[in-house]
């Protein structure tokens, strides 16, 4: 895993006259799990969309190392994204979905890679012809993670990854995030769940009305009470 920094430099995003992000400057490092928290409409998903390269900022830039990710098209290959929705084709099986993405990313030795990835996310025993439509929500989320990790990206982005998971699924996801952090991957997740953020993160960003209201890193991680205090203080009217 290459050690790279992701730098958000004075990013603004307007939708018509509405300002979704205002002068956002942030830095994320490899081996960090960052949780972006904030109330509804704070701009969290917009920021994640910009980080994923799917949304262009109105002004400002995002740099991965020294390259602007919106100018360098190959930057997309460094990003894995897991959203609310699993981003897989429901009529294809887990294998067929991963085979398609392995081909799109030109992954060498794809079959071995797919088998290993399915085993890792706990879908190794699923019938090879079962369409993803028949999967439970938890299984779909596991398949989504397998798809996002398949091309070994430097950056992993998650949008409310645990919103539809049961407690076992949430625990599994937290373990996976920890594993990715230890592997040196740069992980960013958007969440409403402050306890989940405290459980997995060592970097917390609080957004409020499109601006950064708090940006704190603690290498040893946060206690849930610390995150709650940080969040409440950041959202207090100033």
């Amino acid at each position, binding site marked *: 895993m290459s050690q790279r920094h992701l730098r958000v430099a004075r990013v603004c995003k307007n939708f018509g006259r509405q300002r979704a992000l205002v002068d956002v400057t942030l830095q994320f490092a490899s081996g960090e799990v960052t949780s972006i928290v904030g109330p509804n409409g704070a701009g969290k998903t917009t920021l994640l969309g910009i980080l*994923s*390269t*799917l*949304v*262009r900022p109105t002004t400002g830039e995002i740099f991965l190392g020294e390259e602007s990710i919106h100018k360098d*098209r*190959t930057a*997309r*290959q460094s*990003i894995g*994204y897991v*959203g*609310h*929705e*699993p*981003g*897989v*084709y*429901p*009529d*294809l099986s887990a294998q*067929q979905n991963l085979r*398609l*993405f392995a*081909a*799109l*990313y*030109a992954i060498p030795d794809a079959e071995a890679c797919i088998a290993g990835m399915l085993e890792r996310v706990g879908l190794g025993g699923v019938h090879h012809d079962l*369409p*993803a439509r028949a999967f439970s929500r938890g299984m*779909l989320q596991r398949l989504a993670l397998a*798809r996002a990790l398949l091309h070994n990206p430097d950056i992993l982005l998650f949008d409310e990854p645990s919103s539809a998971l049961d407690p076992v699924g949430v625990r599994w996801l937290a373990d996976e995030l920890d594993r990715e952090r230890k592997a040196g991957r740069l992980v960013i997740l958007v969440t409403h769940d402050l306890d989940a953020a405290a459980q997995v993160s060592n970097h917390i960003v609080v957004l409020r009305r499109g601006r950064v209201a708090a940006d704190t890193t603690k290498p040893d991680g946060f206690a849930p009470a610390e995150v709650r205090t940080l969040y409440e203080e950041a959202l207090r009217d100033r």
Partner: protein
Amino acid sequence: MTASFWRYTLLIAGKDLRIEGRSREVLYTMGFSAALVVLVFSFALANATDPAQGPITAAGVLWAATLFTGTVALSRVLDRERENESIRSLLLSPAPRAAIYLGKLIATAALMLVVEVLLAVLVGVLFSAAVFTHPIWLATVLLLGTLGFASCGVVFSAALLRARSRDALLGALLFPIVIPVLLAASRATACLFDPLAPDLDPVGFWTRFLLATDVIYISLGLWVFEPVVAGE
């Protein structure tokens, strides 16, 4: 356009056709709708007596049914990208947006052409059209007409991916744009269906017209697909 561009294009087209091969829902819906349209027209026009109008009517029915069933194909092929937000995964992959467009175009056109073969046979039987007199010409006209229709349709369908009443909007936006394609295709087909036609000069003219329209529409599609699909 490099070899990898075409690899991405074929991967995306292959994926759509594989999904259809598993579910067959688009083909069955299109085939059923096509048969229904042709049957309704054949009953409605059963007492038409002017034999000179026969080829024109048959060509009109063929292309009206194609328009109708093509809209079903367009709507469903892009709808599959909306389910589970798979379009996001596709857009995040290294595949160029233009390759995604061409892949979708190839898959949609392939599905339409399969149904058009059934349509042509039905029209031949029910309207006594000379479907098999010039099979190569007819195949060329069907191919070019289908590409012209699908090239615009994929762009509009992608633009309406997140719209609430996209099925209604798709027809309203797409049909006026594809009028030149439909006019040319139905004129060429009417000439081909006419066993008394003195020569194929008009077919040649309308085929060249279709080819030019396709080049323009596909070029525009390749150009506008990226901003359309990104919602910018």
